[in-house]
C-alpha cells in the first residue's frame, strides 16, 4: 500500500481528491427541510394538522419527525404525532396502515402504545397519531437505573408478553428496537411501552440501495435489529419470527451492552455487505464479545451492578443461549413465539432447564441435580441418584436387601473407576457430561469382572438402564442384552434378576418402537415363569404386568384385558390390595379400557388404585401422580373438563418439582391439559401447552416416538381449529407417516391421524382427498375398535358430514343408518 502523503501534491490535486470523495449535504439540511415543511403544513408550531394542534417537536428519526400535539375532539388529550418524511408514496403508506387499522384497534395491552389515527397533511405527507409516551428507550433506562441482569430480564418479559399479544392478533411490529420501547415510571411502577405498532409495516420498504441510504449516505432504518429475512427479501414474507429476532437482538444488548453485530461494521459497508453479515455471519456469543471489550467491559458490567467476570460467567453458563436462539438465521430454529421466549426467560429465572438448552437429556439431568442440591453433592452423588432413579423406574417390587450387596459393588465401581479415570484435571466445563462418565465406565468394564459375572451383569444392567433413562437407546442396548445374557446363564430364566433384565430389555424395545419384539421376549419368559414358578409367584405377576402393557400399546386390547382380568385377583390374593404391583395392574387395566373407549370402566380402575394408595403414599409419589393424570385424561374424554383441568393443575407443579420439566410423565400431563383446553376452545392456552409438551418430547424421545407423534397430532388438530391449515396439514402428514411406520397402518392411532387429516380437508372443501382417508379410518376403526368405540362413531359422523357437504346424500345414507344402529345398540 502506498503511503504517499498528500502534503506535496498540488492544490488542484487535493481538490480532485476531495471531489472524488465528496460530501453531500448533511442530514441537518434534510431535517430542517423536514421541519420547515412541517411548519409549512402547520403554520408555525401551534398550528393544526387535521384536528391536532402541534405543540412542540419531540424528536426526529429515520422515518420522520415526531411532535407533541393536542387533540381536542372527541376527547382532549395529548398525543404523539408522527409525520413521515417525504419521498414515500403517501397513498400506499396510508393504505397499508388502513389494512391493519382494524387489527390495531384490537390491541389492548398495558405495554403497547395505542395508535389512534392516521391521515395526510395538507402537503400530502402521511402522519400517524399515537399515544404519547414519555419515557426513555429501554436500554437507556436500564443503564441509567443500573438495573441488574435479573431486573432487566423481568422488564424484557413484559415486552415479550406485549409482543405476543400483538402476534396473537395477527400484528407484526417489524421495527423492534430500543427507541421503540419507551420506559416510563408511573406511581413507582416501571412500565415499558412499545410504540409504532402498525407504523413500521405501513412505512417499511424493501431493503435496497435507495431505501438504505439517504442522499448523504446516512443509513436509514436499523439494520442492527433487522432479521435476515427482512434484510434479504421484499418485506412481504415477514412473519412473527422476525419480531422474535429483533427481540433477541434487544435482549443481547440489554444483557451485554453491545450489539451482536457492531454498528460500525454494519453501517460502513454497502448494501450487499450488510445483507451478507445479517444473513450469513454468526454473531459472537455475548460472553465472548464481553471478554474482547477490555476496559469498556468494566463499565458495562458496572451498569449491571456486577463485575466483568461474574457477568461473563452468568452469560456463558446458559443465559446467553436465550438471545442466541432468538437470533438464529433460520427462522425455524428460533423461538416459535414471543410467549415461548418469555417462558424461557422465566425458566432461567426459576432455575429450570431452558428450551434453548442443548439437545439431549444430560443437560436436563444436570439441571435436576442443580435444582435439588439438598439431595445431591458432587458427581458421585449424581450417580447415586441415577442408580436410585433406575431402581425406582422398574415395575418390579424390588426387595431392598437383595440389591444391597451388589449395589455396593456397583456404586464402588462407578465411583472409584469413573471419577478416578475422569480425574480432576480432566473435568472441564459443561462438556464433561454424565454420558461421558458412562462411556468411560463402559470401556473400563471390559474384562474387569471376569470372575464375578453377577456383578458384571449388575453393572451392565445399571449402565444400560442409565443410558436408557438419558435417552441413549443405542448405547443402552448392548448393556441390557449383556446383562440378560449373563443372568440367564448364571441365574436361570426364572430368577428375579433375570426377569428384571427381561423386563428392562422389553422396555427398551418399546422405547425403540420395537413393541412386537418386546411382546415376544416377554411371552417367552412368561411361559418359563408359569412352568417353573407358577402363576402365584411374584415374578410371574411382574412379567404379566409388563406384557399387558405391551399388548395394550400394540393395540391388542383383548389380550391385555384377558391377562389383567386373570391375574389381578391373584395379585390381590397373594400380594395384597395395597401392593404396588396390584396397583400397577389395576392401573394398566384401566388404560386398556380407556383405549377401547370404555371410559367409565377406566375411571373406576383408576379411582380404585388411587384409593389403595391414599394414606400409604404421599402426594409426591410417582405412581400416585401418574394415576391422577390418567384420571384427568379420562375425565377429559368424558368431557368433564372442570374435573380434568383441576387434576392436571394439581399434579403438574408437583410433577415439575419431583421429576424434571421434560420427564415423560410431566409431558403427558402437559399434553393432557392441552387437550382439555383444546376441547374447551381455549386455543391460546392449548397452543402454549402443546408446544411445551411437543418440544419436550422431541428432545427426550425424538421425532419418531409414539408419544411425540401423538402430541404432533394433537397440535395439528388445534391448528385446524385455528384455521392454520398449512401448518396443520404439515404436522398431520408427519404424524400420519410416522405412526404408520412405527405402529403399523392398522393401528388405532394411525387411524386417528387419518381421521383428523380428513377433517382438515373437509374444512378446506377438499372432499375427494378427505373421502379416501376417512373411509380408511372408519373401516379401520370399525375393525380394530368396534362400532361402539367413540372414535369409530366420530369417524362415521365425519363421513356423513363429508357427503352432505359434498352434496352426495345417497352416499351419506348408509353411514347414517349404521350410526343409528350403533346408537340404538347402546
Amino acid at each position: 500500500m502506498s503511503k504517499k502523503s498528500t502534503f506535496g501534491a498540488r492544490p488542484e490535486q487535493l481538490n480532485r481528491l476531495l471531489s472524488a470523495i465528496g460530501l453531500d449535504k448533511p442530514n441537518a439540511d434534510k431535517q430542517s427541510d423536514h421541519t420547515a415543511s412541517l411548519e409549512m403544513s402547520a403554520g408555525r408550531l401551534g398550528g393544526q394538522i387535521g384536528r391536532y394542534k402541534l405543540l412542540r417537536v419531540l424528536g426526529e428519526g429515520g422515518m420522520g419527525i415526531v411532535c407533541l400535539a393536542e387533540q381536542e375532539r372527541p376527547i382532549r388529550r395529548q398525543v404523539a404525532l408522527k409525520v413521515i418524511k417525504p419521498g414515500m408514496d403517501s397513498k400506499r403508506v396510508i393504505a397499508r396502515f388502513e389494512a391493519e387499522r382494524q387489527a390495531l384497534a384490537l390491541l389492548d395491552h398495558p405495554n403497547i402504545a395505542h395508535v389512534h389515527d392516521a391521515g395526510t397533511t395538507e402537503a400530502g405527507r402521511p402522519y400517524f397519531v399515537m399515544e404519547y409516551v414519555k419515557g426513555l428507550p429501554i436500554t437507556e433506562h436500564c443503564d441509567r437505573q443500573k438495573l441488574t441482569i435479573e431486573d432487566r430480564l423481568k422488564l424484557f418479559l413484559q415486552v415479550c408478553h406485549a409482543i405476543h399479544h400483538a402476534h396473537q392478533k395477527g400484528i407484526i411490529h417489524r421495527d423492534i428496537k430500543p427507541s421503540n420501547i419507551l420506559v416510563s415510571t408511573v406511581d413507582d411502577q416501571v412500565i415499558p411501552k412499545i410504540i409504532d405498532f402498525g407504523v413500521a409495516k405501513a412505512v417499511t420498504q424493501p431493503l435496497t440501495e435507495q431505501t438504505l441510504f439517504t442522499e448523504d449516505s446516512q443509513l436509514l432504518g436499523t439494520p442492527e435489529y433487522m432479521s435476515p429475512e427482512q434484510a434479504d427479501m421484499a418485506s412481504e414474507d415477514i412473519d412473527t419470527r422476525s419480531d422474535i429476532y429483533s427481540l433477541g437482538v434487544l435482549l443481547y444488548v440489554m444483557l451485554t451492552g453491545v450489539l451482536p453485530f457492531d454498528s460500525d461494521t454494519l453501517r460502513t459497508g454497502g448494501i450487499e455487505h450488510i445483507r451478507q453479515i445479517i444473513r450469513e455471519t454468526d454473531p459472537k456469543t455475548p460472553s465472548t464479545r464481553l471478554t474482547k471489550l477490555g476496559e469498556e467491559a468494566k463499565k458495562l458490567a458496572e451498569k449491571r451492578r456486577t463485575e466483568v467476570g461474574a457477568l461473563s460467567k452468568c452469560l456463558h453458563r446458559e443465559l446467553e443461549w436465550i438471545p442466541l436462539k432468538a437470533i438464529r438465521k433460520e427462522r425455524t430454529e428460533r423461538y416459535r413465539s414471543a410467549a415461548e421466549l418469555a417462558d424461557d426467560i422465566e425458566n432461567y429465572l426459576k432455575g429450570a432447564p431452558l428450551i434453548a438448552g442443548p439437545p439431549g437429556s444430560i443437560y436436563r439431568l444436570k439441571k435436576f441435580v442443580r435444582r435439588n442440591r439438598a439431595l445431591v453433592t458432587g458427581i458421585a452423588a449424581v450417580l447415586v441418584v441415577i442408580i436410585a432413579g433406575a431402581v425406582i423406574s422398574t415395575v418390579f417390587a424390588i426387595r431392598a436387601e437383595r440389591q444391597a450387596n451388589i449395589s455396593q459393588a456397583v456404586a464402588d465401581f462407578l465411583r472409584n473407576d469413573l471419577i478416578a479415570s475422569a480425574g480432576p484435571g480432566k473435568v472441564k466445563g459443561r462438556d464433561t457430561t454424565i454420558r461421558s462418565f458412562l462411556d468411560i465406565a463402559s470401556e473400563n468394564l471390559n474384562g474387569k469382572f471376569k470372575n464375578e459375572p453377577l456383578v458384571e451383569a449388575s453393572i451392565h444392567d445399571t449402565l444400560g438402564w442409565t443410558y436408557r433413562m438419558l435417552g441413549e437407546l443405542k448405547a443402552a442396548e448392548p448393556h441390557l442384552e449383556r446383562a440378560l445374557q449373563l443372568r440367564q446363564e448364571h441365574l436361570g430364566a426364572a430368577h428375579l434378576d433375570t426377569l428384571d433384565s427381561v423386563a428392562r430389555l422389553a422396555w427398551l424395545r418399546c422405547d425403540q418402537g420395537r413393541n412386537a419384539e418386546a411382546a415376544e421376549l416377554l411371552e417367552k419368559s412368561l411361559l418359563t415363569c408359569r412352568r417353573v414358578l407358577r402363576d402365584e409367584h411374584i415374578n410371574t405377576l411382574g412379567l404379566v404386568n409388563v406384557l399387558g402393557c405391551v399388548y395394550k400399546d400394540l393395540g391388542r386390547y383383548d389380550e391385555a384385558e384377558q391377562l389383567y382380568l386373570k391375574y389381578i385377583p391373584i395379585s390381590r390374593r397373594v400380594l395384597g390390595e395395597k401392593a404396588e404391583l396390584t396397583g400397577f395392574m389395576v392401573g394398566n387395566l384401566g388404560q386398556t379400557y380407556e383405549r377401547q373407549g370404555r371410559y367409565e370402566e377406566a375411571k373406576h380402575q383408576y379411582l380404585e388404585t388411587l384409593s389403595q394408595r391414599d394414606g400409604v403414599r404421599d402426594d409426591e409419589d410417582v405412581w400416585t401422580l401418574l394415576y391422577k393424570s390418567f384420571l384427568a385424561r379420562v375425565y377429559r374424554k368424558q368431557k368433564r373438563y372442570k374435573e380434568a383441568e383441576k387434576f392436571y393443575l394439581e399434579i403438574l407443579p408437583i410433577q415439575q418439582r419431583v421429576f424434571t420439566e421434560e420427564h415423560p410423565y410431566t409431558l403427558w400431563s402437559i399434553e393432557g391439559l392441552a387437550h382439555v383446553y383444546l376441547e374447551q376452545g381455549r386455543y391460546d392456552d392449548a397452543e402454549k401447552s402443546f408446544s411445551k409438551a411437543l418440544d419436550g418430547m422431541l428432545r427426550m424421545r425424538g421425532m419418531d416416538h409414539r408419544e411425540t407423534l401423538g402430541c404432533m397430532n394433537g397440535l395439528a388438530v388445534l391448528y385446524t381449529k385455528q384455521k392454520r391449515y398449512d401448518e396443520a396439514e404439515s404436522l398431520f402428514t408427519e404424524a400420519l407417516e410416522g405412526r404408520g411406520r412405527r405402529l403399523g397402518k392398522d393401528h388405532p392411532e394411525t387411524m386417528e391421524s387419518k381421521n383428523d387429516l380428513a377433517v382438515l380437508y373437509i374444512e378446506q372443501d377438499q372432499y375427494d382427498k378427505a373421502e379416501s382417508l376417512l373411509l380408511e379410518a372408519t373401516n379401520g376403526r370399525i375393525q380394530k375398535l368396534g362400532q361402539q368405540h367413540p372414535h369409530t362413531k366420530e369417524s362415521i359422523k365425519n363421513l356423513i358430514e363429508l357427503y352432505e357437504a359434498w352434496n352426495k346424500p345417497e352416499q351419506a345414507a348408509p353411514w347414517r343408518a349404521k350410526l343409528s344402529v350403533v346408537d340404538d345398540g347402546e
Partner: protein
Amino acid sequence: MFCRPDVLFGAFRMKVYDQTSMGGEAEMFLTTHWSLIEDVQSEHNKDKALIGLLLDRYWKPVYCYLRRKGYDNEQAKDLTQGFFHEVVLNRNLVQRADKSKGHFRTFILHALDQYILNEKRRQATQKRNPKGRLVSFDIISPPALPEAVSRLSPEDSYNYAWTAAMLDKILSEVETRCLEDDMEIHWRIFQDRIVQPILTDTEPPSFADTCEKCGIEDQKKASNMITTVKRRLQKALRDYLRIIATSEDEIYEEFSEIMQFFKKSAQDV
C-alpha cells in the same frame, strides 16, 4: 510525535450542540477535543494531553503559515509550540476569540495572528526557555514546503496544509480499517482507480485491468467496492470535521469552503 488514529476516529460520537458556560463556542471548540483524549487523570495531564493533541493535528498548517510569514524553521517550530501552549494554558486567545470568525480552522488562524502580535511585542524572536513547555515538539525532519505551496500566501498555505493533513488522516484511518475488516482488495481498487492517478497525474487503469489485477470477476462488483470505500471516507471526513464544527450544518459549510479555496488556488497556480 504521536499519531493515534484509533484515538481520533473510531467510536467517537459527539453532540456538538452543547454550549458551555465559559467562553461560549470558542471554548467549546477546545472542549470538543477532550473526548479524543483518553486516560487523562489530572488537570495538569489534561492540559498536556490537549496540547499534544492539537499539536499533532494542527501543527502543519500553523507551521506552514508561519514559514510563509517569513519565519525560518526554528522560529516557526518555536512559535508553533508556544502558540498551542498559549491556547490551552492561558485561554486568553480562546476567550478573546471573535465568534464571528466562524469555523475552528479560521479561528485558529486568527488566534495565531493574535499570538504573533503578542510575541512580537514581547520580542518573540528570542528563543524561549524550553523548560516552560509541557510538551516538546520535535520535527524529525522539517517539512520541505512543496513548490506549489511556496508560492501561496500564508493564509492559503495554512489552508493547504490543513486540508492535506485532513486528507492524510482520513485516508490513513480508512486504510487501516479496511485492512482490519478484511477489505484489502477494496482499498487496493480505490487506490489504483482513484487516489494514485490523482496524486501521480496519470490515467487510471481500465476497470478490466483493475479487476484482473485484483482477482475480481465482475466490474460491477469492483464499482460497488469503490463506492463502499468512498462511503467510509465520507464518514471519516464527517467525523473529522464534526470535532471542530458547532453543528451538522457547519460540517458541510466547512467542507464547501475548503472546496472553494482549492478551486481558487487551482486557478492561481
